[in-house]
C-alpha cells in the first residue's frame, strides 16, 4: 500500500513540476531577438575573424566607409574619399561631430590610432593584421583629413576598410583598457551600443543617441548564442527568438510550414569546389581532370541533394563576386565525352581516385557520394574519404597529403575574386599544395597592380577562365544562406556578407 502511495506521490510531484510553468512572453515590443550560432568571445575588432563577429559587431562599430546590402560602398565615418598616386594613397575627409559611445570625440587621431594598433604588436597577436599589411602608414593632414598610404598595390583595400579589423575604436578608452577588457566592453561609434554581455549566453544592444546615419527603430536587440541549429529553430517556432541564423537545408520545411514564420535567403559568400591534386597521380594529366569535370552532373546535384537551395558555379566565386564572368559557360555534363577523354589519356579502367572531404559536413557527404557515383559510371573507381575538419585544414591540405580530389569551401566578405584566386592558385600559398604555374602567378600578381576597376575585373575574369581551361578544379556550387524570421519583424534585409545593420529594422 505504502509503496503505491509513494508511486502516486512521485507521479503527482512530476506533474506538479511540469504543469505550472507558463509559456514565455512573446517577443516584447521594440525588442528584436536574434539567435546567433557562435559567440566570438571578444568584440575587439583586431582579435577575431568570424562571420559571427561581423553579423553582430557591424551594429556597434563604423568603418571609414560602409557597404550596403547591395555591396555598394557608401560614406561611413568618412564623408568622401579620393584615390591618389595611382592607387597608392587614399585620402579621407572625415565626418565632424561624431562621438564614440563613451563620449570620446571621433577625429583623424582615432583613425591613426586604430590603424597603428591594427598594424602594430597588438594587431600581430590576432588574425586581422595580415589582411591590412599593404598599408604603409597613416598620415593625419588636419583633424578631419587623413591619408592611408599603401606600400604595395591593394585594390581591395577600400572594401576592407568597410569591415572587421578596420572598425574605428576610441583611442583613449582602448589604450586604457587593453584588448581583453575592450573585447568584453566594446565601444564604437555605431548605431547601437552594448548594454549587456554575458559570455556564451547573450549580448544586448540599445540605440546610441544621435547616430549620424539616423535613429534605429528598435529599442533593443538581444543576441542569444545558440549553437545547435535544431535548438535555434525550436526557439523560433516557440516565438522566443525572431531570427534564426544560418538555417540548414534540412530544417527549411519546419520554417515554411509555420504561418507565423518566413524564410529569407541570400547568395552565400562561400563557394564549394573539388580541387585536384595537379602534382601527382592520375589527376596530373589535364585530360583526366577535364574528363572528371565532364563526368559530373552538377545541375542534378544542386536539384536533388541541395533541393535547389544553391547555384551551380563556373569558377571558384559567386555571381556577386568582383571578377565573376557572366560569359563563362559551364562545362556541360557529358559522360560519353568523359569516357573518350579518359581513354585518350590511356588511364586504365578502374583506376582508383579518392575524394577527400570534411567529415562534419553532412550535406557534402551526400554530394561526395553522388560524385563518386558519376565518376564510377565514367569508368573510374572513386572512393570517398572523410577527414576530421581540423586535421583536414591544418595538415592534409596544406601539406599536400590529399587524394586526387579534395573539398574546398571558400569565399570571404570582400567579395573580390582576388581573395580566393590568389590563395588557391598562387604557388607557395598555405591552401595551395600542388599548383605551380609561373604564368598564373604573374597574372595573380599583375591584377593587384591595376588601379582601373574595369581593367582589373577583366584581368580577374581571365584568371577564372585560365583555371577552367586547365581544369585545376571541379567547380560545384554556391549554397544560399537562409534565415528563419518571425513575420512580426519588418524591414530586415539579409546582406550577402551576413553583416547586419539593423537601423531600418523594426518589430510589431
Amino acid at each position, binding site marked *: 500500500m505504502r509503496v503505491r502511495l509513494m508511486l502516486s506521490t512521485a507521479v503527482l510531484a512530476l506533474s506538479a513540476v*511540469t504543469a505550472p510553468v507558463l509559456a514565455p512572453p512573446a517577443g516584447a515590443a521594440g525588442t528584436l531577438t536574434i539567435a546567433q550560432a557562435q559567440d566570438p568571445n571578444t568584440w575587439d575588432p583586431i582579435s577575431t575573424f568570424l562571420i559571427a563577429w561581423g553579423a553582430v559587431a557591424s551594429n556597434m562599430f563604423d568603418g571609414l566607409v560602409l557597404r550596403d546590402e547591395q555591396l555598394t560602398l557608401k560614406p561611413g565615418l568618412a564623408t568622401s574619399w579620393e584615390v591618389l598616386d595611382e592607387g597608392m594613397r587614399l585620402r579621407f575627409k572625415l565626418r565632424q561631430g561624431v562621438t564614440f559611445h563613451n563620449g570620446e570625440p571621433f577625429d583623424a587621431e582615432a583613425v591613426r590610432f586604430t590603424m597603428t594598433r591594427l598594424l602594430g604588436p597588438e594587431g600581430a597577436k590576432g588574425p586581422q*593584421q595580415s589582411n591590412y599589411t599593404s598599408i604603409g602608414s597613416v598620415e593625419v593632414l588636419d583633424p578631419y583629413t587623413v591619408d592611408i598610404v599603401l606600400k604595395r598595390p591593394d585594390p581591395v583595400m577600400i572594401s576592407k576598410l568597410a569591415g572587421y579589423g578596420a572598425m574605428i575604436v576610441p583611442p583613449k578608452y582602448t589604450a586604457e583598457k587593453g584588448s581583453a577588457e575592450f573585447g568584453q566592453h566594446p565601444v564604437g561609434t555605431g548605431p547601437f551600443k552594448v548594454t549587456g554581455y554575458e559570455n556564451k549566453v547573450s549580448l544586448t544592444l540599445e540605440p546610441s543617441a544621435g547616430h549620424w546615419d539616423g535613429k534605429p527603430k528598435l529599442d533593443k536587440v538581444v543576441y*542569444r548564442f545558440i549553437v*545547435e541549429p535544431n535548438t535555434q529553430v525550436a526557439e523560433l517556432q516557440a516565438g522566443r527568438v525572431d531570427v534564426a541564423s544560418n538555417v540548414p537545408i534540412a530544417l527549411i520545411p519546419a520554417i515554411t510550414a509555420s504561418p507565423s514564420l518566413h524564410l529569407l535567403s541570400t547568395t552565400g559568400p562561400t563557394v564549394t569546389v573539388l580541387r585536384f591534386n595537379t602534382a601527382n597521380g592520375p589527376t596530373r594529366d589535364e585530360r583526366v581532370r577535364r574528363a572528371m569535370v565532364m563526368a559530373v552532373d552538377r545541375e542534378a546535384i544542386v536539384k536533388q541533394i541541395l533541393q535547389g537551395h544553391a547555384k551551380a558555379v563556373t569558377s571558384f566565386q559567386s555571381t556577386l563576386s568582383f571578377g565573376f564572368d557572366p560569359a563563362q559557360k559551364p562545362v556541360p555534363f557529358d559522360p560519353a565525352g568523359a569516357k573518350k577523354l579518359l581513354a585518350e589519356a590511356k588511364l586504365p579502367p578502374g583506376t582508383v581516385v579518392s575524394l577527400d572531404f570534411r567529415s562534419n559536413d553532412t550535406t557534402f557527404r551526400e554530394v561526395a557520394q553522388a560524385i563518386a557515383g558519376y565518376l564510377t559510371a565514367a569508368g573510374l573507381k572513386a572512393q570517398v574519404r572523410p577527414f576530421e575538419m581540423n586535421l583536414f585544414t591544418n595538415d592534409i591540405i596544406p601539406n599536400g597529403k590529399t587524394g586526387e580530389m579534395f573539398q574546398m569551401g571558400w569565399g570571404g566578405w570582400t567579395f573580390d575574386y582576388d581573395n580566393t584566386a590568389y590563395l588557391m592558385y598562387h604557388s607557395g*600559398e598555405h591552401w595551395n599544395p600542388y599548383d605551380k604555374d609561373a604564368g598564373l602567378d604573374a597574372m595573380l600578381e599583375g591584377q593587384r597592380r591595376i588601379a582601373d576597376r574595369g581593367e582589373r575585373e577583366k584581368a580577374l575574369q581571365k584568371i577564372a577562365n585560365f583555371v577552367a581551361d586547365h581544369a585545376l578544379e571541379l567547380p560545384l556550387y554556391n549554397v544560399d544562406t537562409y534565415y528563419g524570421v518571425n513575420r512580426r519583424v519588418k524591414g530586415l534585409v539579409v546582406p550577402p556578407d551576413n553583416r547586419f545593420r539593423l537601423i531600418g529594422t523594426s518589430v510589431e
Partner: protein
Amino acid sequence: MGRFLAQRFALAVFVVFVVTLLVAWAIRLSGDPAVMLAEGSSSFSAQDLRNIRAALGLDRPFWAQYAGFVAGMLTGDMGRSFMGGVPVAKMVAQALPLTLLLALLSLAVSLLISVPLGVQAAVHRGGWSDQAIRIVSLLGLSFPNFWLAIMLVLVFSIALGWLPPSGAEGFAGLVMPVATMAIILSATNVRLVRTAMLETLGAQYITVARSKGLSETVVLYKHALRNCAIPLITFIGLQFGGLIGGVVVVERVFNWPGMGSLAFDAVASRDYPVLQAVVTVLAAMIVLVNLLVDVLYGLVDPRVRGT
C-alpha cells in the same frame, strides 16, 4: 581508516595528473589554434602565424607549456582563453555551478523515480507492474539522450508551449534537461534497485524481520533497502562519469551554458587553456566522487572500515 584515505587520495591525485597530461598532449595533435584563428583572413603568411603562436605562448616546448599549466592550476590561475583572453577561471566559475545543478538534480530525480519503482518491481516480481516497469525501462535504455531531448522540445515547447526550448532561465529552463537525463538514468537505476532488492529479499534476516511482525514498509525500506545501498552507491559513483558525458550532449541541445558547452566550444576552436581546465576540473570531480564512494562504504557498511 586514515591510511586507507591517504592511499586513495594519493591515487586520485595521480589519476587527475595523468588525465591532464593526456589531454594536453592529445589536443596539441589535433590542430593549430593559430590557423583556426586566422582562417578566413584573405592572406596570412607563415610569419603571421608565428606571431599569433608566440602571443598564445605556443612557441614554447610542450613541457614548458604543460608545466606552466600545472603551476597555474596549483595556484588557482587557469590562464586565459585563446578567444579574446577571457580568464578561464571566470568561465569555469560561471559554467560549473550550472553543470553541477543539472547533474545532481538529475541524479536526485532519477533516484526518486527509480527507488520506489525498483522496490515495487521486486516486491511484485513477475506481476504486471514488474513487467510494465521492465518494459518501460528497456524503452528508456534504448533512447539516445539527444533524441529524447528533441522529442521533449517538440512536445512541451512547440506543441504545448509550456516550457522554453533552451536556455538557463530559472526553474522552467531546468525541467526538460533534468527530465531527459533523469529518464535515461532511471532506466538503468530501476533495474539495479530491482535486482539488488530481489537478492536482499531472499535473505534470512528479511524472513526473520517479517516473522517478528514488522510492517512490510519497515521491512522493505529499513531492512531491505539499506542493504541495497552498497551496490547502489557503487553504481552511482561509476555512473557519475557517464552522467557528466551525458551532460555534454544535453547541454548542447538545450543550450545550457555549462561545462559541456564550454568543452564543446573549446574543442571546436582549439582553445587549449579552456579545454585543459574544463577536463581537469571534471576529472577531479569524477575522481572525487569515487573517493567519496569509498568513504561512504565505510559509513554504510561497518565491515569496510576495518580493511
